[in-house]
């Protein structure tokens, strides 16, 4: 089989179809998880980085990327993992942040590297916008989420943890 004539730019667009397995409203490109895509003749190499080091979804992501590229006609796909530079929530695009909020997941606050400073600010409730909120737990259903409670609309919600 001959691999299709897609430029690297077009490959990035194909990879936008691959959703985050734990947050299916956003894709791996806009989450900053896919770090590079290179093409050498028939072979496509994708480098990804986990959000959290122990992220249990990493293998699923690798499989989903390979599956999508195979659908696009590439049989020689290599997905490798890099740990450096460390992933940060600063890499999540504005568009993805808006999607997270619509999903009911408060986007991570912006920070300039020292995120411990923003941890003292309360998250805005994704349902009513109130800042009258408090942390119930620093960990939620996944390591990357903080459990909050909104005292204004009396609703529990989650925030993507700044990192």
């Amino acid at each position: 089989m001959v691999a299709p004539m897609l430029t690297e730019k077009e490959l990035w667009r194909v990879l936008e179809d691959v959703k985050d397995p734990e947050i299916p409203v956003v894709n791996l490109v806009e989450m900053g998880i896919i770090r590079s895509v290179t093409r050498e003749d028939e072979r496509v190499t994708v480098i990804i980085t986990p959000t959290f080091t122990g992220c249990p979804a990493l293998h699923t992501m690798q499989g989903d990327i390979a599956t999508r590229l195979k659908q696009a006609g590439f049989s020689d796909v290599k997905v490798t993992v890099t740990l450096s530079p460390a992933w940060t929530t600063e890499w999540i695009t504005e568009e993805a942040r808006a999607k997270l909020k619509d999903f009911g997941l408060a986007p991570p606050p912006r920070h300039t590297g020292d995120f411990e400073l923003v941890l003292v600010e309360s998250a805005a409730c994704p349902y009513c916008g109130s800042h009258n909120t408090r942390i119930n737990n620093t960990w939620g259903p996944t390591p990357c989420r903080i459990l909050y409670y909104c005292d204004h609309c009396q609703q529990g919600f989650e925030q993507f943890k700044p990192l």
Partner: protein
Amino acid sequence: MENDLKDALAARLLAMGDDEAILGHRDSEWCGHAPILEEDIAFANIALDEIGHAQVWYALHAELLGEDAASYPDELVYRRSAGAFRHAPLLELPKGDWAFSMLRQYLFDLYESVMLAKLADSQNESIAGAAIRIGREEIYHRRHTQTWVRRLGLGTEESNSRMQTALDALWPHVMELFRPLSGDATLIEVGILPNLGDVQTVWEAAIRPWLTESNLAIPEAIPSNYTRTHHTKHLATLLDDLQEVVRLYPEGSW
């Protein structure tokens, strides 16, 4: 890389991986048993983080030895005998009560924070990169455990007395974290590893006031005789549990 340096680095990476893996396993024993649901979730996530961190150090260890970074960590955890583990024995002690596990986690989190901050400047690029990454996640651990230490220390008479009992039992073991391995001097010389004495100084300067302000008395304890190469009887029991399935089904895969 010269052989001496390579052996020393492999040994140090193995010790760092073992610290995380063994503590992660002990923490995971709280899954379904923590005193409140929120803490059950939190501690299970901390356990998951530590096991993830173990994988990072094990992968670097594997690369150095020319082994497969993806599969070799499983070999290390599931197929080694007790005598080959190189973690600090502090981390293999049975989980005890909630106070004991929480305090141990805090002692280790703070040690790790100091160590990782220094390793971020390591002359070895892979180690520096991993240290930056793991260090950020550790901030959440430290904030969590230090808050619980304070809360339990200043809480009720019972919570304070349980914390004091835990501290009396754990304190003799803390030196195990700072005793160098035989090859460490070589690594310190070339700027790969920080001086563990310096790590200890920073650690003590942070931990002593926090414990004291949490109404806990730091014991005048004689350091334990255990080391990274001389373990307590609890390690064999821990491995009986951790390696049970692999021993029963050596060729199993899932």
